[in-house]
């Protein structure tokens, strides 16, 4: 998955487990950038009576670097508080929830947004309501409008939303984790000699009926950039690097008198996410939780995993004869400068005509967005490799097909960016898990917070 349950330790702590990060110039609100950090992977919509919520003890942050040093220049912090109106009922709600102040809503959550800029913390808002989870037609009628009421307009033309959304990341988990047996190419897989599949098959979206919890903030571009010249695509000052982290206090004890966990000590980072699938696919199991605890500026220590991705070596083995040129590249132990540029430094000027999202020589896993590139009127879900510079890896939009983009990049389709003599295998330009945004039943919204209305517990799974 993008970053769902990607590391052993964080997989046991879902509320602190970041799943996806998005950063894009808002298509309906030019002059702003939308940042979305998703947490809590694979939420079953019917998961009551304790429906999913953010962790009250977790410090959620979205960081922005705007001067190419992989240090946060601007951070938005989100802290949540759960309130239980009536502890004497087992019910999440005692009647229909028709508004965010409904007395029928028993267990609700509010949050505080703090901006940290140049070391100075400013509370932007407090006591903001999250929407309830989407329970069903009797409990949460008119859910879409109920949730939309939880889009809060703050001063300074900032919008925020924090709450449940439909999972917008589409991926065929079943095939990928069954030894990378991509269904559209399963007949070409070596199948370990078992000859189970003789024909290709369409992909299956494993997240099609699952929800997630989103923290979304829309900010004027000018608030994210300052100092360096910016406004033109060629200006390095137009590029921001974004990542999200979740932190917990270091000490954790079960209090037998309060019947709950108590936490103490300084906050310590336990989860981070920028580019999709990096910790999932590139970082080895023994280092994943360590990777989660590190700031991007330290990513040089992981650079070998970007330069020599394990999956690039596996593809020619799992699909015999399909990736001969990739096999030669791997055998030659050629460092993948293309992947290092895309994921660790950004793409410099002169590599892709009219495009750059370079942030300098500091190797750091950040989602880099050139804010001078406007939103596309006719987006291509393959982003930059599909000829659409407004999409991944120039930031990431909610509908971008990052699985296919990264599969193709690892298979060698982006090597010619740094080595014109390399000819990618024909399959490298075709490989996919077979999904598109149409694989997401909820669809997406055209306005903030862009991710679709969450699946309801009553309706999902449908009979």
């Amino acid at each position, binding site marked *: 998955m993008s970053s769902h349950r990607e590391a052993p330790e964080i997989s046991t702590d879902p509320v602190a487990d970041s799943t996806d990060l998005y950063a894009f110039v808002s298509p309906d609100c030019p002059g702003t950038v939308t940042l979305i950090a998703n947490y809590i992977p694979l939420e079953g919509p019917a998961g009551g009576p304790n429906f999913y919520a953010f962790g009250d003890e977790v410090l959620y942050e979205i960081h922005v670097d705007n001067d190419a040093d992989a240090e946060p220049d601007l951070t938005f912090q989100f802290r949540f508080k759960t309130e239980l109106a009536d502890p004497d009922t087992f019910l999440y709600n005692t009647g229909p929830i028709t508004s965010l102040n409904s007395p029928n809503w028993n267990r609700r959550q509010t949050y505080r947004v703090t901006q940290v800029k140049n070391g100075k913390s400013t509370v932007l808002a407090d006591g903001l309501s999250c929407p309830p989870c989407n329970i069903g037609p009797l409990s949460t009628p008119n859910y879409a409008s109920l949730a939309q009421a939880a889009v809060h307009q703050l001063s300074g033309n900032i919008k925020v939303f924090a709450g449940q959304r439909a999972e917008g990341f589409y991926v065929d988990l079943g095939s990928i984790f069954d030894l990378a047996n991509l269904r559209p190419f399963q007949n070409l897989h070596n199948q370990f000699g078992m000859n189970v599949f003789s024909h290709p098959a369409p992909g299956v979206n494993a997240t099609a009926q699952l929800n997630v919890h989103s923290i979304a903030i829309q900010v004027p571009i000018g608030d994210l950039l300052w100092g360096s010249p910016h406004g033109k695509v060629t200006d390095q000052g137009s590029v921001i690097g974004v990542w999200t982290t979740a932190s917990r*206090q*270091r*000490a954790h*004890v079960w*209090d*037998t*008198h*309060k019947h709950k966990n*108590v*936490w*103490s*000590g*300084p*906050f310590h980072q336990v989860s981070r996410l920028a580019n999709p699938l990096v910790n999932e696919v590139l970082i080895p199991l023994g280092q994943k939780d360590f990777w989660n605890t590190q700031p991007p500026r330290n990513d040089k220590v992981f650079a070998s995993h970007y330069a020599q991705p394990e999956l690039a070596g596996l593809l020619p083995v799992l699909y015999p004869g399909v990736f001969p040129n990739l096999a030669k590249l791997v055998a030659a132990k050629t460092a993948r400068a293309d992947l290092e540029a895309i994921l660790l430094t950004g793409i410099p000027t002169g590599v892709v005509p009219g495009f750059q999202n370079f942030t300098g020589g500091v190797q750091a896993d950040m989602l880099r967005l050139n804010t001078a590139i406007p939103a596309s009127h006719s987006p291509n879900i393959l982003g930059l490799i599909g000829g659409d510079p407004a999409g991944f890896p120039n930031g990431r939009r909610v509908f971008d097909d990052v699985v296919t983009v990264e599969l193709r990049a690892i298979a060698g389709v982006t090597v010619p960016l740094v080595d014109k003599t390399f000819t990618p295998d024909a399959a490298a330009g075709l490989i996919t898990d077979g999904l598109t945004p149409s694989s997401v039943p909820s669809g997406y919204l055209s306005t903030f917070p862009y991710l679709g209305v969450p699946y309801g517990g009553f309706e999902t799974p449908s009979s």
Partner: protein
Amino acid sequence: MPPEIHADQSQPPASLSRRSLLRGAAGVGAVSVAAAAGAGTIFAAAGSANAATDAHADAVTDTAAHPAGDEPLVVYLRDAATGEFEVFHGTRQVRVRDRKLAVQLLNQVR
């Protein structure tokens, strides 16, 4: 020998001593002590009747520096051999080195 407070910790408590650690351990409901001895071995001393009793006896003799607030104080013995403790309170952390206290606490839970 006074406990050693590491220089890399900002704002150490004014009076971190064996006495104050034990006084903290005596708090009811809001205090836990976790101790680790040897690789992979972790055992909790919270709720140890003897430890609580002795610590309380120590506490009542000195009320000058009572732990502030109602937040939990958590003490983690990260290296029994050297007596290196990490003490957590609120959002702060200090390191204390006191081998004698480590031995004393470990004896309480054995």
